[in-house]
């Protein structure tokens, strides 16, 4: 079943040069106190073309965050190969709250620019643009403690977009949000992505979200995580997050992915 799906034609993807190539990535954690080894990711291979939007779905604890952290060089791999064909390091939106409490919203968003030494005027313009994009303009001078959880997450997204890097890694950025806000932000993200054509690796445990956003969905097995399926999502761009739910293919694919998640390794 998986094999058949992988054979669906993907003409654009094939010619685009890959931005990310991961081959037989393996990662384990060792707890020396308990002398226990946790195999988190095992022989995971995938590649992402330049300008492609890829979602990774998989059960909790299957190693999604671990893979992303390895891509961002925040964690070392045990074996396998990870190649990033870009000039700058990937920008990351973390799964947990990652806004810095001592900075205002605007300062948080400006952080990557400030550290790079971008001229003040340019920083200001860029930050305003990012805040408008994420609907935070009226909270520019607020402290993170004065924001809701969803707003803090939007600050993280704005910060990751601020210095316009080629690869964007997003770890369940909308996981903690309500359905409505999530839909709005998904639409926003699609709009941003269609405008900028960044390479995006987006982790989610929501099949629905993956199909809404991605060009391709990678399905992972339970821990130790490995690739179970690589599905092409056929919907044309630009997408309308609400309208696409009228498409029968959306529900067929949803069924497909759920089947894979329910019986991993069954293929």
């Amino acid at each position, binding site marked *: 079943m998986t094999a058949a799906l992988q054979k669906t034609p993907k003409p654009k993807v094939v010619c685009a040069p890959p931005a990310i190539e991961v081959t037989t990535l393996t990662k384990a954690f060792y707890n020396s106190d308990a002398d226990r080894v946790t195999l988190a990711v095992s022989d995971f291979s995938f590649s992402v073309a330049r300008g492609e939007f890829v979602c990774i779905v998989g059960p909790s604890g299957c190693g999604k965050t671990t893979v992303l952290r390895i891509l961002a060089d*925040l964690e070392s791999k045990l074996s396998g190969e990870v190649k990033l064909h870009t000039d700058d390091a990937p920008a990351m939106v973390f799964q*947990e709250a990652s806004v810095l*409490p*001592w900075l205002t919203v605007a300062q948080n968003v400006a952080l990557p620019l400030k550290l790079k030494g971008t001229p003040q005027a340019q920083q200001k313009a860029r930050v305003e643009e990012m805040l408008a994009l994420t609907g935070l303009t009226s909270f520019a001078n607020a*402290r*993170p403690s004065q924001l809701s959880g969803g707003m803090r997450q939007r600050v993280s997204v704005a910060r990751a977009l601020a210095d316009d890097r080629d690869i964007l890694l997003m770890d369940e950025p909308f996981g903690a949000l309500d359905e409505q806000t999530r839909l709005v932000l998904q639409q926003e993200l699609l709009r941003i992505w269609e405008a900028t054509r960044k390479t995006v690796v987006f982790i989610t445990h929501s099949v629905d979200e993956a199909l809404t956003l991605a060009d391709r969905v990678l399905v992972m097995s339970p821990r130790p995580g490995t690739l179970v399926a690589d599905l092409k999502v056929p919907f044309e761009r630009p997408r309308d997050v609400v309208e696409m739910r009228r498409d029968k293919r959306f529900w067929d694919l949803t069924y497909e992915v759920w089947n894979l998640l329910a019986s991993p390794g069954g293929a």
Partner: protein
Amino acid sequence: MNTSSRPLTNEEMHRLKSPARRERLFRRASLFSPLLLLLLWEISSQLNLIDRRFFPAPSAIAQTAWSMIVSLELFDHIGATLRRVGIGYAMGAIPGVILGLMLGLSQTTRRLLGPIFAALYPVPKIAILPLILLIFGVGDMSKYVLIAIGVFFLMFYNTLGGVMQAPQIYMDVAKNVGATRFQTFRHIALPAALPNIFTGLKLAAGSSYIIIAAAEFLGARSGVGFFIWASWQTFAVSRMFVGIVVISFMGYLTILLIEALERHLVPWAKQ
């Protein structure tokens, strides 16, 4: 984003702002709570509930103080003590914070240098006064050094704790936004440790005055500590109390100053 909504009523506004108002009131009132103790003392002394030879009434002490203020006698002593505390404090706090941040950020440095500080920390500061006097002489340098040592350890350990307690995610963010080592130090570790640094600064201010008082008893010709000692030697109890009150008040004001600075520099930490 804002849908039109009714304006808040005056009563709602009042309730909304009342915690902030109460906070301001408390802040002001807390300035006066030590005065209550003085009032109790005054009454007990006036009513002869306590021995006036040892505990002259605050009003009598105030009289002595006033005459000394008029004669400008006390200010030289205050100036000398303040200078020693100020310089010694800076000499201890700055390296303490810097080393605390460095050891907090780098596990290797922490493993190499940590045990040295751990071994030196328990040495009582007053116990090494003779040694310090021997090395640095009886001049002001020995006072600076003594205070600096005491302040250093408090700042070092509080800062180190602050960095180590900071959530790992802050360091991950630093790395991901491309911070250099120095930028991580300056823009992540320092602010993350700032609440702890201020705890250290307050503790260190208290110890500084303890150390300077003891140091001035034994090896100085000026300063509030010297003044207390000299008054004791001539059994001028009122003058001695003036000295005690003055040095306590100096410590109290220093801590108030640090707290004001803290509110200004660490606005994100809930007091």
